[in-house]
């Protein structure tokens, strides 16, 4: 029988060390990637700020010179910028979830993106006046899964409505948790106290709203309802 059994202590320690190194390497890589993500978002933000300024100037130009023949082209670019902005917002949300180090930076970026969205929201009002764009604007206030279990369902339905009405519906998603005074101003103005909440132009709908109800509300606001309204 074996008198003294062998214990591979050195291998236990070495395995622990290597495991820790792999994880630390992963963490380090994560931090590097996070820094790159911040840079990426800042770059896109800079680009989008220029795009916004361009759109703003274009509408000002049309307004001052009454050059309405340019409206269609300007709105196309405007809508494309807005779509990209929303994609970046979605990406930002995901990066915030994964964030380990740059919470404050991401929070600041999120505020920046929200303000950018609200600028577009306001500019879209100008687009309607200047170019007579027949669009309906929707502000969508959402929160965390814990605070707002139905926000995921609402976002899904809004995405569907967007697919149906395309560029004729402009949906701006606003994170209600954001410590941004402008968001508070909007919430107070529209008396938003629960989530999800939708502000369709000036009408407020609180709680989960079905696609039929959204389409009913949105389509009633068009002068020339788009094809998608026939779906309701």
């Amino acid at each position: 029988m074996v008198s003294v059994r062998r214990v591979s202590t050195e291998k236990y320690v070495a395995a622990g060390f290597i495991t820790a190194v792999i994880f630390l390497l992963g963490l380090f890589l994560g931090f590097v990637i996070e820094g790159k993500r911040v840079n990426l978002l800042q770059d896109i933000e800079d680009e989008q700020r220029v795009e916004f300024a361009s759109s703003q100037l274009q509408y000002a130009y049309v307004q001052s010179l009454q050059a309405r023949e340019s409206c269609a082209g300007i709105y196309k670019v405007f809508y494309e910028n807005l779509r990209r902005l929303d994609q970046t917002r979605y990406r930002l949300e995901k990066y915030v979830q994964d964030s380990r180090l740059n919470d404050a930076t991401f929070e600041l970026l999120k505020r920046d993106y929200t303000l950018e969205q609200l600028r577009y929201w306001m500019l879209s009002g100008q687009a309607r006046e200047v170019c007579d764009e027949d669009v309906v604007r929707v502000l969508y206030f959402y929160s965390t899964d814990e605070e707002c279990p139905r926000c995921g369902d609402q976002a899904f339905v809004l995405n569907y409505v967007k697919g149906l009405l395309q560029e004729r519906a402009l949906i701006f998603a606003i994170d209600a948790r954001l410590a941004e005074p402008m968001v508070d101003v909007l919430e107070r103005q529209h008396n938003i106290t629960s989530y999800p909440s939708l502000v369709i132009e000036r009408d407020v709908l609180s709680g989960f709203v079905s696609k039929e109800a959204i389409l009913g509300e949105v389509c009633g606001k068009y002068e020339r309802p788009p094809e998608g309204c026939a779906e309701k």
Partner: protein
Amino acid sequence: MNLVATGLLWFAAVVSLYFAVFWFLVLLDGDRPAVRRKWKEWPLVTVAIPAWNEEQDIEGTLRSVLALDYPADRLEIIVVDDGSKDGTVVRAQGIVSGFPGRDVRIISQENGGKGSALNTALARAKGEFFVTMDVDSFIQKDGLKRLLAYFVDRDIAAVMPLMAVHEPKSLLQKMQWTEYIVNMFYKTLMGRLDCLHVVPGPFPVYRTEALRKVGMFDADHNLTEDLEMAYRLQKNQYRLVQATDVTAMTKSPFTFREFYAQRNRWFKGAVQNTWSYRKLLFDKAYGDFGMIQLPTVLLAGVLSLILFSQLVYYSAKPVLEVGYRLWFVDFDIWTLLRNFSLDLHALDIDYMAVLLSVAMLGMSAVILWRSHRMMSARVSEQGWISLVGFLFAYYLVLGVAWVGVFVDLVRGRRQKW
């Protein structure tokens, strides 16, 4: 839920990586120099074949043992019919009659389980060495001589052959073929640390004296009497040796139902026996067996359950969510797709998960290559489909068996062998 799920996933990832790295280090450390015993005179060996309703398979197994390249006068064969209700005995008698002069006995007893049948044989065994042989297995001709050559020290209580799946046909059998090869490779690594935890049924050679000293096989319907015997031998500070040049072929379950029943029994037996021997856990007196092997057996189930539940949770949740939400839009998928755009960026990738996966897959690839080389087999021998299935789906299938074990244990359900 997400926080708990993420925490469990990280726990499983860290522990899995730790064990993978540990065994990788054992692999890199190299093997001990091979020492073989040259017998001047071959010892008397008893081969015990417990059989319960094995009419279909007894012939192949019995013929395989009778065909062993070993002096006939040094080989005693005992077939123990464990209360069969079919023609097992008649079939065995028919085969034996074709080998006059061979020392083959057929003993019938009331059904008492495999442990009881082995004890019946052990009580009558005259051999210095005692071999157990499952009736779904075959051994190579020179297997016994090769295995006996490993008995170089008195403290070696058992030497076991490698195992391989006999003629795999179904996809499940082909995946088991790969699993056995990888498992055998791990067993050779365990052997290097003297921490083997199971002596499988097909053709292990025991030192009869050691078996009698530790008190025969557990006849109380132990689900894995072979594992229990290995634990007992380890507890009594005997050594178990994994041979690397002998292979026993065994038939593996063909259908999922058979597979589930087998693995449920194995896993449950492993949990129950490890719990019975829990005093050995983390006890340095039992070397690496107590420090790493027993915790691994317990953790294997826990990790399997965690990974299985995580996979189900993270796969099913989005599918169910989308399915449920589609109901709100009257399942108008086309409109949703019109608004869909693929927006991917290299920075969206979860690099931590990628790093862990690459580390694990890299080590798995090396293990896969080395294990197949050990068994002189090609990695793609059973086809790429079964290999990919083994790598990415097989552990999910094992997870189902572990879930079954967990449910049975929680419900206190008893299981017969």
